[in-house]
């Protein structure tokens, strides 16, 4: 290997540049690549009407969140006595926040439930994402006996509502000693038919067979191909599944309600439900401000998670890999 061939560099465009510049160029190219709305042939005003409809719907969706933020600053009396969509004195936000972390009713503490929820969500969400990645890759890129049947079973599982299987689930759990066990919460959270379905579809589109073939020719084993070649290309899909799974476990109310009777194991959903119940029955516990504040603190991590993960949702993962 001694001959040196002069590269035809002169004729080629220099495509280097910092990552930031590249991103900017990609954004501009994307904008240039889209047909401008003026050329859609729509009736005059259609775009404005549609935009107004979208804004109205957005407001409708955001109203409860605005309410919860405003009312987290109020005392119990003000929550019921003042206009719901504006602030009222005294400003009790920090007091409410501090009270949230105290055991107000001998039911258990918010911080404890928060920790439980985080534990279930992280273990369940990460586990579900990992299993969805393996299963989705298997369904998308391997042919094996019964692969279609198994996949239809997964699709079928999408259609079964959790309510329909509560009783059998409870009976199985009782036999398996999973009542009042964190595994009772985590194990079912690991299975995510939606995740498997999404990953199979995503891998089908974003991990080309040629790339896997190339890696096989390059002498890589299947495990190495999965972790070194396929997994990095699956990241945007994985982040979607991770977010859906974490949110799913975070918001799960029904499953913990039937399997936990020990307050210390409750996640936020059930704990807050318990507070809400007590607030209605005992009245003067000053619990409402805590329920409102608890609701706000409960959704905050999900918003933060969404903001962290959204940077992974970008296209163009395959740029430069496969020529058309």
């Amino acid at each position, binding site marked *: 290997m001694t*001959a*040196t*061939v002069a*590269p035809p560099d002169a004729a*080629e465009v220099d495509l*280097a540049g910092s990552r930031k510049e590249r991103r900017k160029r990609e954004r501009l190219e994307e904008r240039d690549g889209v047909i401008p709305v003026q050329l859609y042939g729509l009736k005059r005003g259609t775009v404005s009407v549609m935009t107004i409809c979208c804004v109205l719907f957005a407001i409708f969706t955001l109203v409860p969140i605005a309410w919860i933020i405003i009312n987290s600053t109020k005392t119990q009396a003000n929550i019921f006595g003042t206009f719901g969509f504006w602030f009222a004195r005294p400003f009790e936000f920090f007091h409410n926040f501090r009270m949230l972390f105290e055991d107000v009713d001998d039911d258990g503490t918010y911080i404890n439930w928060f920790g439980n929820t985080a534990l279930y969500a992280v273990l369940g969400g990460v586990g579900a994402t990992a299993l969805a990645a393996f299963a989705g890759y298997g369904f998308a890129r391997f042919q094996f006996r019964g692969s279609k049947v198994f996949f239809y079973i997964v699709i079928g599982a999408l259609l079964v509502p959790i309510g329909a299987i509560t009783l059998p689930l409870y009976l199985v759990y009782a036999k398996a000693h999973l009542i009042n066990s964190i595994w009772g919460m985590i194990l079912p959270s690991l299975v995510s038919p939606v995740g498997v379905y999404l990953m199979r579809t995503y891998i089908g589109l974003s991990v080309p067979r040629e790339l896997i073939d190339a890696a096989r020719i390059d002498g890589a084993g299947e495990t190495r191909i999965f972790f070194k070649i396929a997994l990095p290309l699956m990241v945007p899909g994985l982040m979607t599944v991770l977010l859906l799974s974490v949110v799913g476990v975070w918001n799960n109310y029904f499953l913990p309600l039937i399997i936990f009777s020990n307050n210390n194991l409750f996640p936020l959903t059930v704990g807050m439900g318990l507070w809400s119940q007590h607030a209605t029955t005992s009245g003067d516990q000053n619990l409402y401000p805590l329920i409102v504040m608890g609701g706000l603190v409960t959704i905050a991590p999900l918003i933060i998670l969404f903001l962290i993960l959204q940077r992974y949702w970008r296209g163009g993962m395959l740029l430069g890999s*496969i*020529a058309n």
Partner: protein
Amino acid sequence: MAAITLSELTKVYATGVKALDSLDLEVADGEFVVLVGPSGCGKTTALRMVAGLELITSGTVSFGDRVVNGVSPRHRDVAMVFQNYALYPHLSVYQNIGFALENKKVAKAERDRRIRDAASILGLTKLLGREPQQLSGGQRQRVAMGRAIVREPSVFLMDEPLSNLDAKLRVQMRSEVLRIHESVGAATMYVTHDQTEAMTMGDRVAVLQGGLLQQYDTPRSLYDHPANVFVATFIGSPAMNLYEAGLEAAGTLVLGSQRLELPAPAAARVAAFQGRKVLVGIRPEDLTVSASGSALVADVRFVEVLGSEQHVYFSIDATPAGAAAGAVVADESAEAGILLGSAPNGAARLDPRVAVQPGGRITFALDPARLYFFDPDTGQAITG
């Protein structure tokens, strides 16, 4: 011993489609063999079977004297360049080239040396830190080549590696691929549908059609001695003109209303077909406008001036050989003729300085010794 031997290699897909039918092929050590044919002829299937990416229905693939039918691609020690490059998009050029060595657990220093060697052969040294998306098409193509040559393989497979490049770069890369082949010295199988690539690059060329090997020979032999009508019309541009002709006693060829006297050797070759029909082939460059030699009168339909030469499309009153005989007929001249309403049925490659007017009449001179003859029933060449 041949480096690669394909013996009665057959592929039938689950749908029942027979992609490859009993292919026998030998590739010697260091030889550059091109598999060429129209799309769907089975050439890529054959290559993928050699690579181990496709199950073999029957027959064998051997490297040296080792049958590798059941060996997985990762254990075959073949290097392959894919049609669409298949670069790992998240790895740098350096990592892309080094991936195979990493899999083989080659020591780091050795790996580095080989990556840099390959990069310098391909002129990629300055681009080692870049990712594929920061490269141009030609650079990506060279990375794909680098990924293959760094392994110093004994078998080198290329699946239409130049088809995604523009025309100018393709010509440039043709010679580059050959130079790399010479420096690597591995037995190479190269798939293409482009007859120019096949003719210019291959030590030997295998022409495939419908999963069957039509002819396996040097480019020169394919052109001068095509085994059948398919090879005759597939190789060469413009394609060979092919007509049905009658053969009268004493070696007179009847081409429509015109007659050509065959010289004795040619007449002897087709003696067995006397009184019957034969297919006669004329290469476009064998038609000239000089005054000597036998004459063929034709009506000029249209002319393509290419600068260094001109292609004159004409019609004569002879019947062109149809697809039934295996000829490649769907070429641009026929299509253009349909548009004009009067299909030309022949082409001549002439000196650009000869004045030719579309719509006019032209008298071609032709050396009857340079005619090709084929059996109209089998499509096979008549060699006498």
